[in-house]
């Protein structure tokens, strides 16, 4: 039995198809990342899987229970962390957890034990009786995740859980998710951050424009990431001759021009940066900006679809 099973899941909004016949399976205990740019259909997919939205076509099962026909059994198995912290500001952290526990029919004894355990795990034990309206964004996010875990769900859905968190908050949350994964909870995580998908997930599904483009192990994704490193540079003059010269520098595998900048793809960004500096000095050019950005999701997506990590960028050599 799969933890999550989606079969031809489709969702139309009027004439717009937000999710287009996607099918995938997630095994029990797996950490599955659902990756895609904004508006790709990640949230719509998670809403269909959690019963918040009715599929136009197709079906989905959670731990073998159909999300439409056996919705009660399916919902008992899941915890949901949406993209916003949906907690009750006028209630304390403790009361929020108690309410969530009651909604899932957790017994009073288990509710109290579990809430105590979770609040301490998330470092909120000292503020459990304070109203959450005074909490920071990170603390509210932690309460949201704790509420989703109060009934010890077999499957946890998280929609952009680290969005809006500072580095420390995001790190803490990721550590907790890793721990949950190790304890056997199936985790379905939507994100648009490659790094998050790379470091956390066993497998990653990539959705673009409502279609599932690929389901890959992160190792493959990492290889693409490694080979898709780049240096983005803008000089005071970006004539075709300058662009040709930059594109001819040693180590450049491909390039893409974007406005007044040029993005040069390479496996050695630091060496290429040195070469660009030498070129600018030697030709009397002033560097307006130079950065070493990570690959964009679109780059990775294109690379995965084409099955060739070299084939990144629009203007290829």
């Amino acid at each position, binding site marked *: 039995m799969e933890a999550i099973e989606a079969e031809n899941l489709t969702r139309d909004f009027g004439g717009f198809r937000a999710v287009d016949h996607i099918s995938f399976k997630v095994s029990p205990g797996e950490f599955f990342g659902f990756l895609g740019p904004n508006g790709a259909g990640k949230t719509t997919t998670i809403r269909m899987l959690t019963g*918040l939205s009715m599929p136009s076509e197709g079906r989905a099962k959670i731990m073998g229970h159909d999300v439409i026909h056996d919705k009660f059994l399916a919902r008992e198995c899941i915890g*949901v962390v949406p993209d916003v912290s*949906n907690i009750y500001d006028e209630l304390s952290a403790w009361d929020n957890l108690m309410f969530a526990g009651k*909604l899932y029919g957790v017994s009073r004894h288990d509710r109290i034990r579990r809430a105590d355990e979770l609040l301490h795990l998330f470092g909120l034990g000292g503020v459990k009786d304070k109203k959450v309206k005074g909490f920071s964004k990170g603390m509210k996010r932690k309460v949201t995740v704790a509420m989703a875990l109060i009934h010890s769900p077999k499957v946890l859905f998280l929609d952009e859980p680290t969005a809006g968190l500072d580095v420390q908050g995001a790190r803490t949350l990721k550590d907790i998710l890793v721990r949950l994964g190790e304890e056997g909870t199936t985790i379905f995580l939507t994100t648009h951050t490659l790094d998050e998908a790379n470091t956390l997930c066993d497998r990653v599904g990539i959705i673009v424009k409502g279609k599932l483009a690929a389901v890959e192990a992160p190792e493959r994704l990492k290889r693409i990431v490694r080979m898709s490193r780049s240096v983005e540079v803008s000089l005071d003059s970006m004539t075709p001759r300058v662009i040709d010269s930059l594109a001819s520098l040693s180590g450049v595998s491909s390039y893409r021009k974007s406005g007044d900048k040029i993005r040069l793809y390479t496996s050695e960004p630091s060496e290429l940066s040195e070469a660009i500096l030498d070129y600018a000095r030697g030709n009397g050019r002033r560097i307006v900006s130079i950065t070493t950005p990570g690959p964009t999701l679109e780059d990775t997506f294109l690379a995965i679809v084409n099955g060739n990590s070299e084939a990144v960028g629009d203007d290829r050599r």
Partner: protein
Amino acid sequence: MKFPMLSRVFAELLKALAIAKKDACMYYFQPQSFMMGILFPAAMFFSFSVGRNLPAEVVIPGIMAVTILFSSSSIGPLAVPMERRTKTYERMIVAPISPLSIVFGEICAGIAFGVVIACLPLAIGLIFFGVSAQNLPILIASTVLVAFEFSAMGVMFSAVPTENPANAMMLVNLVRLPLIFVSGIFVTAAEMGVFGWITWLSPLTYGADLFRSAVSGRLYGLIPDVLGVVLFTVIFLALSVYLHERNRTAG
């Protein structure tokens, strides 16, 4: 388990009560809600009774009915759209709980609030105007029943698919305000002339009649009034469940 159905009903009831308690803490038992629940009916009372020499036995039941109408039906249309905006409403609909239990939980909080607020005009009547409740059990039962009716009405209007409480409030006021004038409370059916029949279409008419019966002790119209209140309650409840369930999966 010996009685799985009974156990399921009990579990659902506990979940509904959790929703009611949450609503009571979050929205109902707040100073601003009390002020709104008391001030508006009080203003209506003074507007229509001062200078008209209406007997207290007529005015107090009427004002109780109006108070319950406004208090029980006020918070649902505010709270649910607000919870849609903050996405806390989604927390309830992804949980293993039936739409009926969610609606019932929302209604229960309105009942409690309506009953508490209705005690005020009754206390004023008893203390300052010498009104005596001739049939206290009927009065208590009527208060709970009418609060149920109008709380269900408020929750029905909260099903309007909006995240802006003002949109739902506008609709509920569009219905509530005219009800005051067509329910035989301040303007009797006889005074309405050929339009007197309209009073029988108003859900408020039956509640006000019930209170009058309980205060006066004259119970000859009790059964039709109870049936009237029950009928409207069932209609509001059924529409609430249907509309909330329909809108639930629309997103």
